[in-house]
Structures are given as structure tokens and as C-alpha cells.
């Protein structure tokens, strides 16, 4: 690439990066500022004091919320991995009459928006007495057509001779699934796991509906509480809360960006 073109590209890259990252950067700066500094409209805080962070943990049971979010996200991630990988295994390695029909049914669930079914789901959770429980927050999300589809795409790349070789060796179907398919598909399992963790961590509407006390409430709802309590004056505290909430997922994304991109593109397109 010629030098002037390089300059143009770097300029575009830097400019876009600054614009896109500005809200996060600004929130990060604010989280260290005192109320007065914010009023003056400064960009850099005078001192990087952690006062706001201490205060946000006092105001809210933020530690508990973080814990809850972690439990719920990990739970959904594990549940999705187990349920989806089992289904995907059938769609690739166990042929039976009507399999295509079942697969079509699975895919059709992608067209039903979660929000269109939330009213009966809310009552189902109530009837099961699952409001304010971890299972109420996790179980409905275990089955995921997208996840099944993504894993199926990867399983399909595994040569069928591997299955035949294991048949000759006398491996049972479950042993083949457990000892060959899952280890071989580590990369797409990681992708789906990261995706499941991210989306669950960031989930907003469902936790809002099925939690009404601090018992299992997640951080996202905590943010809403914080914002409605503090909105008048203490933006520094609110931003400290924001930073605490986004750090785990940002870290996950930074570590797994390449992997996530590869895996999601594979799953999304044939």
C-alpha cells in the first residue's frame, strides 16, 4: 500500500475508533470525577480517586448482583452447551425418519421473537413458582435454535469416517459424542459459550420481569435502579457502576474477539 493511502486509512481508523469508543472512555473518566468536576464539563479528572467505586458498592448490593449475573450467565452458558450440542449431534450423526421436519421446527423458533411470547412465559414462571429464582432466569434460554444450528454446521465438517472408525472400534454413540465430537468441536463450543455468556449477562427485559427483590436480581437491573436513584447529582457513582458492569463482558470480548468472529460467521452463513 502506498504511503498516502496508508495515512488516509490510519486517519479513518483512528477517527472512527475515537468516535466509537468515546462514550465508554468518557464514562470511564467520569467515574473518577467529583460532582463539581462533572458540572464543569471536564474530560480528565483531577485525580484518579476510587471514591465513586466505593460508594456504588455501598449504595447497591452490587457484589450480590455481580454474583447473580455471573451465576445466571454461567448457568445459561452451560445449559445451552449441553442442550444444543445434544440436538446438533442428532442432526448430523443420527438419521431417522422425520429428522428434517424436526430440524425445520427448530429453525422456525428463530422467527418467533422472545418478546411476543413473554406474557405467557411470565405466567408459566409464576405457576412454577420460579419468580426470583435462578432457574426462572436460566432454564427458558437453554434451548437455542441458533446455537443448535451453529454447532450443527461445525459437526458437519467432521468426517463421517471418524464415526465409522469408532463404530468398528466398538464405541457407543454416547461415548463417540463425549470422547470424540465434543473435544474435536472445542472451538465452536467456546464460541457458543462466549456468545451465550455475553447475551445473558446483557439481558434486560426478562430479569426485569421475573425478579422483584435483591435475591437473584442481575447487574443490569441494578444499573436501572442506580440510574433512577442517583440521576440528579451523582453521575460519577452511576458511571462507576456502569464500568463495573461492562468490564467482565468487555474482557471476555477482547480475549475472544477473533474466535467469536470466526465462529459466528460460520454459524450465520452456510
Amino acid at each position, binding site marked *: 500500500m502506498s504511503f498516502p493511502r496508508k495515512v488516509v486509512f490510519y486517519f479513518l481508523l483512528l477517527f472512527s475508533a475515537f468516535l466509537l469508543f468515546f462514550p465508554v472512555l468518557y464514562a470511564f473518566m467520569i467515574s473518577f470525577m467529583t460532582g463539581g468536576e462533572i458540572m464543569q464539563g471536564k474530560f480528565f479528572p483531577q485525580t484518579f480517586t476510587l471514591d465513586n467505586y466505593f460508594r456504588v458498592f455501598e449504595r447497591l448490593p452490587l457484589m450480590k448482583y455481580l454474583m447473580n449475573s455471573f451465576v445466571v450467565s454461567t448457568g445459561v452458558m452451560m445449559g445451552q452447551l449441553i442442550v444444543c450440542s445434544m440436538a446438533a449431534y442428532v442432526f448430523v450423526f443420527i438419521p431417522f425418519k422425520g429428522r428434517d421436519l424436526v430440524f425445520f421446527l427448530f429453525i422456525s423458533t428463530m422467527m418467533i421473537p422472545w418478546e411476543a411470547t413473554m406474557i405467557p412465559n411470565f405466567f408459566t414462571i409464576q405457576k412454577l413458582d420460579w419468580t426470583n429464582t435462578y432457574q426462572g432466569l436460566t432454564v427458558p434460554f437453554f434451548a437455542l435454535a441458533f446455537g443448535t444450528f451453529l454447532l450443527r454446521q461445525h459437526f458437519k465438517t467432521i468426517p463421517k469416517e471418524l464415526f465409522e472408525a469408532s463404530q468398528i472400534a466398538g464405541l457407543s454413540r454416547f461415548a463417540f459424542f463425549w470422547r470424540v465430537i465434543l473435544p474435536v468441536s472445542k472451538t465452536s463450543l467456546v464460541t457458543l459459550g462466549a456468545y451465550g455468556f455475553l447475551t445473558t449477562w*446483557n439481558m434486560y427485559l426478562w430479569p426485569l420481569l421475573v425478579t422483584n427483590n435483591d435475591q437473584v436480581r442481575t447487574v443490569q437491573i441494578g444499573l436501572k435502579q442506580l440510574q433512577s436513584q442517583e440521576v440528579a447529582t451523582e453521575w460519577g457513582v452511576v458511571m462507576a457502576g456502569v464500568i463495573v458492569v461492562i468490564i467482565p463482558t468487555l474482557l471476555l470480548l477482547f480475549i475472544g474477539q477473533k474466535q467469536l468472529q470466526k465462529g459466528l460467521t460460520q454459524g450465520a452463513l452456510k
Partner: protein
Amino acid sequence: MKGSSSLHAKQSIWKKSLNARTALLYLFPSILLFSVFVFYPMFRTIYLSFFLTDQHGSAALFVGLENYAYLLESQAFRNSIKATVLFVLYTVPAGVILALFLALIANEKLKGIGFFRTIYSSSMGISVAASSVVWLFLFHPSVGMFNRLLTLVHLPEVQWLLDPDWALLSVSISTIWLNTGFSFLILLGGLQNIDGYLYESAKIDGAGYWYQLRRITIPMLSPTLFFIITISLINAFQSFGQIDILTKGGPSQATNLIVYSIYREAFVNYQFGTASAQAVFLFLCILIVTILQFKFGERKVHYQ
């Protein structure tokens, strides 16, 4: 001999059904969960949309299509539809173009490109609640960034979230920002899947950057673009969190998007019947979008 052949027949029936039985065992969790949390509630929603309901969401009085008739009459619902359509128009094209632009500049082989890719995809790791809180501050009438910038260049301040003419646009801007990460990541993946030989042969033919973009990149990327447009559309229809935190549907219902409207109707006003009718409406919208996309999109799309 006869005995053994009938034994074989039995064996083979046993064997054949073995596959189906094993398959069902593995599929059981998915089928159960889909039945309870997707298929049943879908039918239940349609069912409820024909009824007036009590406070516990049980069907109380059959009213046929009256809920729908009521909705079509209702100014509030029409308003909500208008807001949703506008919201889709504001967010989808702009969001896809922005993500495509970012993916194109981040697909160059330059030093430190990994850093930029990480930055561009970062909004995928930020929740709707967190981003909305940040934008709430940016849009703040007095201490917010935007109004400070406007005063700096001596322009009149804008009541971003409080002015009915501006609120929807403001919410759209924050939504575009939030969705950029995911769209960018998928589009970048699509770009990287394009065979490098195509560009090499184009270079040998002496094609310039824009020509390559128009004749190779965009056509080869069309399946990914197609996918991301569909996803963005569906996402736009489903937006909720930003409304709940930024505007609560206001001012004067200018940002009362359909999902927020369903939420309020059901869980604030306890009108589960009309809420269900709206939910059916949402479902139909998404269904139509998907079908249209497949029908018209698929033909124009270039699959490898």
C-alpha cells in the same frame, strides 16, 4: 430358516427404531424447552388475544377480534407503530452502512489492525442498560456532552430526550452505536471469507479500489449483508431496554416502540388481552420481514 428370517425382520425393526429412539433421547431437552417456552406461549398469546383477561392473565371473556379492532382504532397503538417503523428506518440502514464502513477499513492489512478491530467490536460487550445509562448522560440537557458541544459552537441547545421531535432520533443514535459491534464482527468475518485470489486477479487486470469494492467485495459479501440486515431489522423491532431507561416511551409517546408498548399494556396496565394482540402483531411483522427477506433477498444474493 423361516424362523431365522422373521427373527432378522424383528432385529431390523428393533435396529431401525433404535436410531429414532436414541435421537429422541438426545432431542428431548430441546423439544421440551421449545414446547414450554416457545410453542405453547406462542399459541397461548394468540389465544389470549381473543379474550379479555383478569389480573392473573387468565382468559375471562371471549371478545373475538375486538382487541384487534380496538388496537386499530387506538391512537396510541397507531402512534407506536409509526414510532417503530421510523425507528427501524433510522437504525437499520445507517447501522449497516456504518458497520460496513468500519469492516472495510478494518479489513486492510495494516500494523495494529487488531487493536482497531477490538475497539470496533467493543460495543457488543456492552449491555443495553449500561450503554443507555451512558447515553442518558451524553444527552443530558445541562451537563451532557452534546449540548456542551453545541454551546461551544454557539448553536442553540437541543432537548435531546425531552423534545418529541428529537427523542426518537436520539434513541436511534444510541441504538446504532450499541448494535455496531455485532454487525461489524459479522461483516468483518464475511470480508475475510472472500477468497484473496479474486483480488489478486483483479489487481492483475488493473482494477482500482472502488472498482474492486463494487465488483468483488459487495457481491461476494452479499450473503453476509443479507444476514446482517435481517438480524438488524429483527433487533430493531425487539428494542426495549434503551426505551425503558432513556425515555420510558415519552415524550408524548414519541418513542413508545412496540415491545415497550406491549410491556406497559401487560405489566403496568394489566391488559393482557390487548397486549397479546400487540404481541401477535409484532410476531406477524417479524414473520413478514423474514419471509420477504428470503423471497426477495435470496434471489439477488450471490452465494459462493
